[in-house]
């Protein structure tokens, strides 16, 4: 066995790792050990993970290196260390959703995305922390403690996929998966200075993603750069018969178009965007428009009048769906149970003890919105607002190919800043929510820094299944930042 290369010589991007492992230039084991060493150094401060799977990952890295040695190709993500949000089912490996109610549960099956990552040669290094059942924007609502932002550990990483965002930002994994119901990939990506993508609804199978709001949830990647996000999304997308909402088409093809540039692309500026973005974030957005104009794009003004009603529609629809989805946590089939003399009392005791405050709040809000006498006034009206928002976006896309907005109204805030006022936390999702309501894709790409030198993300939005132009735009913004 040769001497291990120094950390500086090892590739860090998804593309470089896979290329050098497949070509027997770097071993999967060396790449993995570098990431595990970084976890040892900083995980105590950051708490990105609910579970680190060092032994399993080492065994998998050895398998991949053996395959390369005998001339077999381990796949397009060969040896890439990947972290999984802990609401993605992993067979035989605890999957908690950062909730006491699922503590100790080991799923009997793998999520489709997990199977696809493994088949592509990726190495799962751990399960990452989240706001309980993905409900939150700071990863403070976890039964296992908050995750901290690698850029400043007195601040939140965003949420709900804060552990996955922090894991990539801290160098614990080359990529990670999160889930995005109202911004839970894009907002933490912005706050942690990494790329985060919410694909078109139905482009990635939700089989094995623990459901929060089924008509809004979508799985997507976090990576260091846009090209890496394209590689991971290519590996996990495509039809899956285990998810009835999965779109009947093959995997997305993105990587080859990243260098096409944006000449002639119509980039929409939403003139009636809801207020709330802080001056530093607004300034970076203006610079992003300028950068794209310099690169040959045409900047066009569009209106999306119903954009601002997204927050209300979302916070009625998502809790309504959640109240139904989370009815399954009753102490019967999985997870936690509090014993009681009869079944009804057992349900009540189990759920009261097992769910945290935010989850209870949303279950009650959703139950209220769906209850007799209020259904039409709340849930029914919210669904009509949702249609209105989708129609407004469709009209905007008649004039623009992609739209740009902030991903998060502010840079990362301090732990505890928003925990006492749920509404202030919900406002973090203002700019990300509409894409979940419409089902259209959106991503956050790092674009400079804001107050206190913290990362700012620009959000690129595109019509359903038009990920290609969204990635081209993001790749151009990334090139401009690097210049």
């Amino acid at each position, binding site marked *: 066995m040769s001497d291990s290369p120094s950390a500086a010589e090892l590739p860090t991007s998804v593309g470089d790792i896979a290329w050098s492992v497949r070509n027997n230039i770097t071993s999967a084991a060396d790449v993995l050990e570098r990431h595990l060493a970084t976890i040892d150094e900083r995980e105590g401060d950051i708490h990105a993970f609910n579970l680190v799977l060092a032994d399993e990952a080492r065994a998998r890295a050895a398998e991949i290196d053996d395959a390369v040695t005998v001339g077999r190709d381990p796949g397009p993500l060969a040896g890439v260390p990947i972290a999984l949000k802990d609401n993605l089912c992993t067979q035989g490996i605890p999957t908690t959703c950062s909730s006491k109610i699922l503590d100790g549960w080991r799923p009997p099956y793998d999520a489709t995305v997990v199977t696809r990552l493994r088949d592509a040669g990726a190495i799962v290094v751990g399960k990452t922390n989240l706001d309980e059942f993905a409900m939150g924007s700071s990863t403070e609502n976890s039964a296992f403690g908050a995750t901290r932002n690698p850029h400043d550990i007195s601040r939140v990483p965003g949420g709900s996929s804060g552990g996955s965002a922090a894991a990539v930002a801290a160098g614990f994994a080359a990529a990670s998966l999160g889930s995005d119901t109202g911004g839970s990939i894009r907002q933490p990506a912005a706050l942690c200075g990494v790329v985060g993508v919410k694909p078109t609804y139905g482009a990635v199978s939700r089989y094995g993603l623990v459901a929060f709001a089924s008509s809004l949830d979508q799985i997507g990647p976090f990576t260091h750069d846009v090209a890496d996000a394209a590689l991971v999304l290519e590996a996990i997308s495509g039809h899956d018969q285990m998810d009835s909402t999965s779109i009947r088409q093959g995997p997305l093809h993105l990587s080859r178009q990243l260098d096409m540039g944006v000449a002639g692309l119509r980039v929409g500026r939403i003139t009636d965007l809801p207020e709330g973005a802080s001056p530093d974030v607004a300034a970076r957005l203006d610079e992003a428009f300028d950068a794209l104009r310099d690169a040959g794009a045409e900047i066009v003004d569009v209106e999306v009048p119903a954009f601002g009603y997204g927050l209300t529609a979302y916070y009625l629809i998502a809790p309504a769906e959640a109240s139904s989805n989370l009815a399954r946590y009753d102490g019967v089939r999985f997870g936690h149970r509090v014993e009681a003399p009869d079944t009804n009392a057992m349900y009540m005791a189990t759920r009261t003890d097992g769910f945290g405050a935010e989850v209870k709040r949303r279950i009650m809000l959703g139950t209220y919105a769906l209850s007799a006498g209020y259904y039409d*006034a709340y849930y029914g009206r919210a669904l009509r607002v949702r*249609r209105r928002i989708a129609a407004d976006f469709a009209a905007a896309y008649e004039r623009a190919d992609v739209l740009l907005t902030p991903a998060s109204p502010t840079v990362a805030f301090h732990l505890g800043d928003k925990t006492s006022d749920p509404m202030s936390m919900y406002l973090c999702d203002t700019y990300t929510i509409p894409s979940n309501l419409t089902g259209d894709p959106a991503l956050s790409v790092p674009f400079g820094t804001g107050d206190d030198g913290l990362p700012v993300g620009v959000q690129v939005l595109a019509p359903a299944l038009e990920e290609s132009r969204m990635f081209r735009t993001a790749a151009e913004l990334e090139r401009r930042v690097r210049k």
Partner: protein
Amino acid sequence: MRAVAWLFVSDRITPEAVAKVAKLARLSLSDDELDQATHQLSAMLDHFADIDALDLDDVEPMTHPTPIANVMREDIEMDCLDRDEVLAAAPAAEDGRFRVPPILGLDD
């Protein structure tokens, strides 16, 4: 009739309504938690009253982003989850089934 129904959006939620909702959701709240939940849900519903002003009479509800319905797969035999593995993840199981406390006779 809808014109009347949507006026509810700006109504404040009462502690009695919150208690009823909690019971429907199988959650028990202490008096303090009930007060806090009433306060917080009221604040949210106040904020959500922004959609009161919209005229939505001609707008169809949108339950889902994609217009697909009745998705079928081929009617062929397929593997399913292993019963013992599924039961192993349950809090209590017996004779190949989930075990629960008594259902009848003790209910209020």
